[in-house]
């Protein structure tokens, strides 16, 4: 009898023993994450604010700097608006296609359109390079077809390829949000309107569009935020001619060392994303007040009429072209010799080769600044493992605390999610201006990279752990306990199987994020310890077939590893849990 009493008391919140007062106990799970965020997020953020607002620093900015800031802000808006518009042009019909039609290959196409969202920017940049670059498949095909001596299309380095890559990235958001709203729309509403005398066009205008408008708005704002904060795509594909806020922050901080201007730009960037995020959450809250959810199946039609078939065929061509070609071009380019290696004269030996993969493991350069690819791969793996360990160690207690509803959780949760709102480049800038002086002078430490990655990965880790941990009903634990299991046995019998799965999934998530991260890394990385994405970007920017081929090979490896990671996460995910 006493054993049970003892257990019951130990579990109660009132008697924690004499050492700690009871109000500390609920705070404990938050301790690690709070200290970490305070030191590595809020403090650097405060430094950026100080840098951006500091009058004495601002005074050093000349008119050109300010014009540059205005110009890059303008271009950021311009390209984001244009990208969002194009994404809607592709995404809305695609959402209709997925929500209303049943056709063979639908699930393949859905996965295909969802993959880019999870891919690292360097992979996407390499993919579009392999498709549309000067040595891309499109140009090679056209040159071969019309016997041209030079590449007829110069997409890379133009606004067009930036827009295309943004559409490639974000169409899945429109498909998911709007498609979801469409398939949850009660089909009887439209039928009722039809019987009341509305023709199909008026049904669309008076009923369907107004009812899914909130989700279209939400998707647009979300896409706009992603386009607004886009960094890798613009830096790697746009070339020197295009500079968004993000790219300008990077240039000012890393290349020109104009930290006050970088701080000011960061501040503008933060304010903009904050405003958009507030807008987004307001739309999402309003979005909740729509018609009751229905089973999605009732909206699905088999494709029958000629018009539907034409629509399906057209969409298939567009979607396959947009999503499959860049993904296929990349691995193909990594095993094909397309141009002469640097310094090699004479006719180029075209053909298949695995040279670019084997070359990754050979250090041909004598330069001390040259880091062979296999070392970059090793660095990335090391950083990723550290990120996994750190983000799990900090995120797990928070997720378990959040899984039990409480006021503290509601209060602290938004603070924990804040790093999601700040762009990666801003995080990186915060790091280099904060940790460059004693007592925190470890800007030269390679450890900054996994710390930055942990900052980015932790919200995702918490978000993917939390629903799983919350899904364990207390009744199960009580049932196990009432059957005579001790609290440890209860944990192993009830919690562990679910927790293990969720933890593995979160770990893979953190690993994948770290492996592909480019924005923050490009600021805090040490040149002698580059990550894989940084190495890819370097190799892409250097001339010669061998460099190009090796960039393709590394990007392919990254794509495959990230793809496997995404696949594993999907497999491990609880049905219906966690989207956006």
């Amino acid at each position, binding site marked *: 009898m006493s054993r049970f009493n003892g257990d019951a008391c130990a579990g109660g919140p009132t008697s924690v023993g004499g050492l700690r007062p009871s109000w500390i106990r609920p705070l404990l799970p938050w301790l690690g994450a709070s200290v970490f965020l305070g030191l590595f997020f809020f403090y650097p953020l405060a430094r950026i604010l100080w840098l951006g607002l500091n009058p004495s620093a601002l005074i050093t900015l000349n008119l050109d700097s300010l014009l540059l800031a205005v110009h890059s802000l303008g271009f950021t808006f311009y390209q984001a608006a244009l990208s969002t518009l194009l994404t809607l042009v592709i995404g809305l019909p695609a959402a209709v296609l997925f929500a209303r039609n049943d056709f063979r290959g639908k699930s393949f196409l859905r996965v295909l359109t969802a993959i880019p969202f999870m891919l690292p920017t360097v992979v996407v940049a390499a993919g579009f390079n392999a498709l549309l670059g000067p040595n891309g498949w499109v140009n090679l095909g056209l040159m071969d077809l019309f016997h041209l001596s030079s590449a007829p299309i110069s997409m890379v380095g133009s606004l067009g390829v930036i827009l295309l890559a943004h559409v490639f990235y974000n169409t899945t958001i429109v498909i998911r949000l709007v498609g979801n709203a469409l398939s949850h729309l*009660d089909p*009887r*509403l439209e*039928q*009722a*309107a*039809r*019987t*009341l*005398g*509305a*023709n199909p066009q*008026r049904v669309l205008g*008076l*009923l369907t569009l*107004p*009812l899914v408008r909130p989700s279209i708005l939400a998707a647009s704002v979300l896409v706009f935020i992603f386009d607004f904060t886009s960094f890798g795509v613009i830096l790697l594909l746009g070339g020197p001619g295009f500079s968004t806020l993000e790219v300008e922050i990077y240039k000012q901080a890393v290349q020109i060392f104009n930290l006050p201007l970088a701080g000011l730009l960061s501040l503008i960037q933060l304010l903009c994303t904050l405003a958009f995020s507030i807008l987004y959450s307001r739309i999402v809250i309003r979005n909740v*007040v*729509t*018609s009751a959810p229905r089973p999605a199946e009732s909206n699905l039609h088999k494709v029958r009429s000629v018009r539907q078939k034409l629509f399906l065929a057209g969409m298939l061509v567009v979607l396959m072209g947009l999503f499959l070609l860049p993904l296929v071009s990349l691995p193909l380019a990594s095993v094909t010799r397309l141009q002469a290696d640097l310094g090699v004269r004479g006719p180029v030996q075209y053909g298949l080769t695995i040279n670019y993969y084997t070359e990754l493991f050979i250090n041909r350069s004598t330069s001390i600044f040259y880091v062979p690819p296999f070392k970059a791969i090793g660095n990335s793996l090391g950083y990723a493992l550290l990120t996994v360990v750190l983000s799990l160690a900090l995120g797990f207690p928070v997720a378990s605390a959040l899984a039990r509803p409480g006021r503290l959780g509601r209060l602290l949760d938004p603070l924990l999610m804040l790093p999601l709102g700040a762009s990666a480049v801003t995080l990186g800038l915060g790091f280099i201006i904060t940790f460059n002086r004693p007592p925190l002078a470890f800007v030269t430490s390679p450890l900054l990279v996994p710390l930055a990655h942990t900052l980015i990965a932790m919200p995702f880790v918490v978000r993917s752990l939390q629903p799983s941990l919350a899904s364990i009903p207390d009744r199960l634990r009580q049932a196990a306990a009432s059957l005579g299991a001790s609290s440890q046995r209860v944990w192993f019998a009830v919690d562990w199987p679910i927790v293990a799965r969720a933890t593995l999934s979160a770990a893979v998530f953190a690993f994948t994020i770290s492996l592909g991260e480019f924005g923050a890394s490009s600021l805090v990385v040490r040149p002698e310890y580059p990550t894989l994405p940084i190495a890819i970007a370097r190799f892409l920017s250097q001339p010669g077939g061998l460099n190009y081929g090796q960039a393709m090979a590394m990007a392919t490896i990254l794509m495959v590893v990230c793809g496997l990671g995404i696949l594993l996460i999907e497999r491990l995910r609880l049905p219906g849990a966690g989207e956006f």
Partner: protein
Amino acid sequence: MLELVDIHKGYEGKPLLNGVSARVAAGETVCLLGPSGSGKSTLLRIIAGLETPEQGRVCWDGVDLAPIPVHRRSFGLVFQDYALFPHMDVARNVAFGLKMQKLAGAEIDLRVADALAMVNLSDFGSRRITDLSGGEQQRVALARALAPHPRLLMLDEPLGALDRNLRAQLMSELRRILHASGVPAIYVTHDQEEAFTLADRVLLLHDGKIVLSGKPERVWSDPGSVWAAQFLDAGNVVEGTIISIKPPYRVETPVGIFELGRDVVPVPVRDEVVPSPGKVGQAHSKGEKVNVLISRRGVLQGAQGNVSGVVVDVIFRQDGFKVTLANGLDFYLPDAPKVGEKINLIIPQAAIKCLS
């Protein structure tokens, strides 16, 4: 006038409607009664033009409606879950069909007010749909369907989602509104109480066909087939053998010997269901098996009864007692016998019907 000719429609490869033919005359309220999954709603959707039949025709005043799209048929449809437009208030919902007819604003306002008054929701015009109760939503749906003056009104289990008391109240209201509007109506339900309350005529749908059609009282007292009798729960169904083929026909059953009315010819038991109850003259002979329906009502206790049995259960019903006998029959009696008591019952000729 609506006419359905030999409608066929399958669902996921199985036949659902298997040759439905029916007519709805001007001003008539027809109830389509059938169990869940019998294809009632599908038939409505075919009439509305939301689905196309695989075979057969839907005609209005002799004109085939196949080429006419949904929005030009001007058939009102009230859905089971109302399908009110969530982004419009009550008045705009009701006005929707009128706007589609491109009526003038003043005319629309007048007709909306009329329609809302008819369903007793005059002050509800500016309410949001989400603020309405189930019963109020149902009335708005009805007002919305009636406001454009459709030439036919179809109601798909409109009371299905409401609780018992509200249903009874709305049923009589619906009856009043349907009669007042004079619109021919097809009312789909699986609830015979609703059907009998509202219908001028009841159509019974079974196995994809109309197996029975008639006034409620006729359908109830003479369901014609074993399936219909059991679906309507019209009384006790027992199998018997014909022992006399000269009028009055006599049928011997395990529970007693019954005389059938002079005008009623027993129909032999067959697999095929024959529509139109009662008098189908079929070849019959002594010793053939037939099913008879023994009504539960109009039965009296008395010494010269033709059925007797030991009482095994007595249940109080508001207007009498439901008494179950050991032989499986049950009856409604005004007075409660004791359980275990043996009683004799006089079952009049009118309480016996022959089934196909």
